[in-house]
């Protein structure tokens, strides 16, 4: 890989980083929102360094041609002149971003990923109990609902009307379907799934987004042994424009 190729690869990689953050919001499909400024800065550095590498090389080439026996040979035989062949692989993320433009993870991952593990030190979330107005449904993130269901030993939450938003995931084994949401701590590679099992509503197409209102069906027995919590729907509305794929 010669210097011009190295410079061009850097420019393309930088352009890929800039295109998902500046000209589109695609980066939200892959990484946390907080990565935006760092991705932009890294993209700018890559483009500048790449352009500088190409310009310096072309100038050196012209210099060699003009003043034939140059003092020392630029590039040729120098340790840094040639990059390793493996550097060509840096074009793969560029291809992935521009040509594939992969969507956010969805039902496929949610049906194969692990359900979120309960942290050993998870404290019961009982701060909400007093603040719930009568008759008003409580808007909850899927993650919070699942956490509460796992720690609510007194089954207090079963008396609340809860509203959840997520996408439909088929249940490969047994009845019903899941309403799921993915939780990401840094990038899509560490996504874990939070989901509820729904049995009193016909299964919608997978990956379609819904807001559901209803109640937790509190299980019998040891609450921490439950794999999937059940949710009984009273009202279901389709979500036109899901804002952020992850929560």
């Amino acid at each position, binding site marked *: 890989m010669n210097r011009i190729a190295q410079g*061009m690869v850097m420019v393309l990689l930088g352009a890929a980083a800039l295109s998902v953050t500046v000209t589109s919001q695609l980066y939200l499909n892959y990484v946390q929102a907080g*990565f935006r400024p*760092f991705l932009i800065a890294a993209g700018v550095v890559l483009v500048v360094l790449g352009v500088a590498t190409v310009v310096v090389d072309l100038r050196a080439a012209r210099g060699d041609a003009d003043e034939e026996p140059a003092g020392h040979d630029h590039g040729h035989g120098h340790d*840094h002149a040639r*990059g390793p062949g493996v550097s060509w*692989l840096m074009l793969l993320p560029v291809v992935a971003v521009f040509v594939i433009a*992969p969507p956010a993870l969805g039902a496929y991952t949610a049906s194969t990923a*692990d359900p979120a593990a309960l942290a050993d030190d998870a404290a019961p979330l009982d701060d909400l109990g007093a603040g719930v107005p009568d008759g008003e449904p409580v808007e909850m993130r899927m993650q919070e609902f699942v956490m509460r269901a796992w720690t609510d030993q007194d089954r207090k939450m079963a008396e609340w009307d809860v509203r959840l938003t997520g996408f439909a995931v088929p249940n490969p084994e047994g009845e019903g379907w899941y309403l799921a949401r993915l939780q990401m701590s840094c*990038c899509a*590679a560490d996504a874990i799934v939070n989901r509820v099992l729904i049995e009193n509503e016909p299964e919608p197409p997978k990956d379609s987004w819904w807001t559901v209102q209803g109640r937790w069906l509190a299980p019998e027995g040891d609450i921490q042994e439950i794999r999937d919590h059940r949710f009984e729907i009273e009202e279901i509305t389709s979500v036109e424009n899901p804002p952020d794929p992850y929560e």
Partner: protein
Amino acid sequence: MPERPSQAAVPAPSLGDSLSHGWDDRDDQQLPPSDWGRRAGPRRTATIWLFALITLGLAAGNAWLSGRLTGDAFLAWATIFTAISLQAIPFLVFGVALSAALTAFVPAEFWQRAIPRRAALAVPVAGLSGAVLPGCECASVPVASGLIRRGVAPAAALTFLLAAPAINPVVLVATAVAFPNQPEMVLARFVASLGAAVVVGWLWARFGKTDWLRPPRTSHDPDASRWRVFRESMQHDLMHAGGFLVVGGLAAATLNVLVPRAWVAAVADLPVVSVLVMALLAILLSICSEADAFVAVSFTEFSPTAKLAFLVVGPMVDLKLIALQTGTFGWAFVRRFVPLTLALTLVFSFLVGGWLL
């Protein structure tokens, strides 16, 4: 020259004639023509054309293919691969920039003065000073080779080589970001990595022989300007590390999508085997130490000690590092140094993991 085709004699010239026409004009001139190798040169021109084609292909793919490809497993794989690559880019770029700045603007004599002469004392000092060189393992190999060339004891330089990619601030911050609710993981990584690096250094100081190391070559033009050293060192490190990072991302995304979760979970439950499996993964995946914490955290089924082994072994022993060390120091060195390092990183992962996690 009677065999030369004459355009006047052939009423309808074929394609071959029109293509070969240009060659005929040069017949009586010198070969190769004197203007070849001038200006941009054929190699450079070909590269520019190649990239013009690549850019055109990307634009066409963007217009007609993007968002229309199907296949759940393939798209999930592509998403995870893109995510790992994108999230590693800032760490890679700024790590390499800082490393290049230290190479270009901090004279090697500074390290020589800062590190004591006695090996027993120099080793821990070198290990700790690894904490101030932000960079991944690709950067630390050339720096260590430069330190040896400038007269630092090999044992101290090797300790620095092992410690720098594992315990520098960029890597520790990345680890803290990847494990937001487990600050003890950052501490465990620091303690286990530094411990392993220092013990390897002491053993090398006691039993190592100088002729196992191939004398390093000079890689920088001595009269190059600092900015040129900075730019070239950044470009060099970026191209070397970037390609291997993509390899790691490909492998990690593939493992993430293809390997049956039940199988991984079954291994993850075995206390010792799971640690060894994660250590093996770290060696095979060869992920840059600035990004490995994000990959480690994605193995949600594994115990904290197994993840720690991934973070401690990866920056000190992995395939791309072995390749780099063989190229820099020679096989006689790698044959002895790599197994020693692997054994100690595993011992420290178990000890510190059992103690802190």
